[in-house]
């Protein structure tokens, strides 16, 4: 019997012949924490009594979730991170650099075939470039920081095949929301997901990150794709590390195979308060919104900003709507600026923030009032996620969010077909 991508990468990193269900200690190629998780990483690391990182070049801390700091409590944590980075002489991306899940691949820290741990649940994002990357808690991360290792249970794998040419106005975000609706928030718990199909092959690497990013929303450990020519080119442009592309064997064992034809898919919207509570946009047009948000590790990349700018160009945001935009990294911000996207946003009346997570996690930059409704390109719409348990969050693609910001209600981006 052949092997899945997960079985191969974990075997490679443990020196053992592993199969789903096995437990092994593996070598980790890169690990990191962000400002919501690093404080406990530091505390746990100190409790271990270890004095240095296992490898200074293989650990980073990123300040992105509340950046710049909105209050004294957060400032204290940020300072603790900066002091620790100096103490250990390890790398750090401070405020203004961007979101961890954009920076880790964009700055070339990871490449195809790597095994990566992040103290953030959306670490699964780099599955799009053939990386076995998964989220862990802070103490697990501290163990890896100290030893370069951690223990893994080899996951069973679900194969997902997506076929069909996406209609105009429908994007990778709509594809993954459609998959999440079908599989459910508990449908892939403890499992790996491998994504295949001509729809995925036709997507840019930016668009694929959106899909892998949300694999954790069905409980998956990783959401991984093969490294095709587009991925190898992307990796070569961003990293000096030698890629080690890993393919599944043709006779690998899958616990389930799911097929989706997306050629007639409508734009998808996740309704409050669960990511798998998904409807076609047509069923929701008319829901009034107070705030729109474009950004995050899910949809804050250049392509996402371009799509939104195409819809917005020359039109004012609806007078009853605040439109908040946060590019996912400094480099994306600069490119967006060069291409005139930032000017388009500002002229339309958007509030453009510095690179970072923006209002996604509810600590700053656009906390909602009681009863208010937001439409966002982020990955979670749990009650209270954007800082107020008495508000309502809808999740959609950058196109749907931009169209809605103009309309003042949830709107179908296909209304702007001529622009797209």
């Amino acid at each position, binding site marked *: 019997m052949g092997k899945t991508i997960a079985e191969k990468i974990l075997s490679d990193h443990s020196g053992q012949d592993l199969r789903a269900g096995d*437990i092994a*200690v593996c070598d980790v190629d890169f690990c990191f924490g962000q*400002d*919501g*998780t690093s*404080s*406990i990483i530091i505390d*746990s690391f100190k*409790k*271990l*009594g270890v004095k240095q990182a296992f490898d200074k070049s293989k650990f980073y801390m990123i300040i992105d*979730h*509340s950046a710049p700091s909105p*209050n*004294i*409590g*957060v400032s*204290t*944590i940020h300072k603790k991170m900066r002091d620790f980075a100096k103490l250990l002489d390890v790398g750090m991306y401070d405020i203004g650099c961007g979101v961890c899940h954009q920076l880790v691949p964009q700055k070339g820290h990871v490449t195809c075939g790597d095994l990566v741990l992040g*103290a*953030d*649940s959306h*670490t699964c994002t780099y599955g799009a470039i053939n990386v076995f990357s998964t*989220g*862990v*808690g*802070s*103490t*697990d991360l*501290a*163990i890896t920081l*100290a*030893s370069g*290792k951690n*223990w893994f*249970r080899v996951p069973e794998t679900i194969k997902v095949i997506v076929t069909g040419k996406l209609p105009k106005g429908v994007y990778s975000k709509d594809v993954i929301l459609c998959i999440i609706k079908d599989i459910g*928030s*508990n449908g892939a*718990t*403890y499992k790996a997901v491998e994504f295949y199909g001509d729809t995925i092959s036709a997507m840019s690497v930016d668009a694929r990150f959106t899909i892998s990013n949300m694999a*954790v929303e069905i*409980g998956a*450990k990783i959401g991984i794709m093969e490294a095709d020519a587009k991925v190898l080119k992307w990796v070569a442009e961003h990293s000096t590390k030698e890629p080690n592309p890993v393919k599944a064997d043709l006779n690998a064992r899958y616990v389930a195979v799911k097929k989706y034809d997306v050629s007639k898919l409508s734009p998808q919207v996740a309704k409050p308060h*669960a990511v798998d509570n998904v409807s076609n946009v047509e069923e929701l047009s008319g829901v009034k919104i107070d705030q729109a948000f474009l950004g995050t590790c899910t949809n804050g990349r250049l392509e996402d900003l371009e799509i939104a700018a195409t819809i917005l160009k020359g039109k004012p945001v609806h007078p009853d709507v605040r439109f908040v935009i946060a590019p996912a990294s400094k480099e994306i911000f600069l490119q967006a600026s060069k291409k005139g996207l930032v000017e388009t946003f500002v002229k339309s009346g958007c509030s453009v923030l510095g690179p970072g997570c923006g209002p996604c*996690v*509810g*600590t700053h930059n656009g906390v909602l009032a009681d009863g208010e409704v937001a439409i966002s390109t982020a990955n*979670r719409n*749990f*009650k*209270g*996620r954007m*800082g107020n*348990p008495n508000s309502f969050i809808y999740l959609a693609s950058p196109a749907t969010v931009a169209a809605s910001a103009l309309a003042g209600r949830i709107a179908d981006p296909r209304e702007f077909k001529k622009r797209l």
Partner: protein
Amino acid sequence: MKHFARRLKAQDNINTDYVISGRYKFKIQDPDELAKHIFEDIDPAFAARVQKGDVLVAGENFGCGSSREQAPQSLKQAGFFAIAAKSFARIFYRNAFNIGLLLVECDTSFIDDGDELELDIGKGKLKDRSKGLVLDIKPVPMVMKKLLEDGGVVEHFKKHGGFKFE
């Protein structure tokens, strides 16, 4: 010590944002302070009802979502002796055992808030004394047992100079 069940109205897919909101976990480092805010967004009166030694009882996929270790940490700090659920999300599961908080998987359908519970990990049973029910617990994996015996992953690592599961 007697253990009593504590149940939320919500049952399945209780995420870690609900356990402890991002509003608090980013700015508060003191676990005692965090423990006062558990489940605040879905049941503001819940935290005040928790007594030391209680068992939190939930349905499917408890602890899904964010990787925040503050979630199991604040539950432990609030006084919970263990959490019983039909299933747990992956990261939460690791995090809980890493800090020495016991999780048990069993059919929790018939346990009500306030029921007196008795846990026997060795025999793999959870008894609901109020109902006269004896529930089978899914065996705790060897790795988790080891981490729990050593008092969490930090203590395990220090004791053995690395991982030692044999």
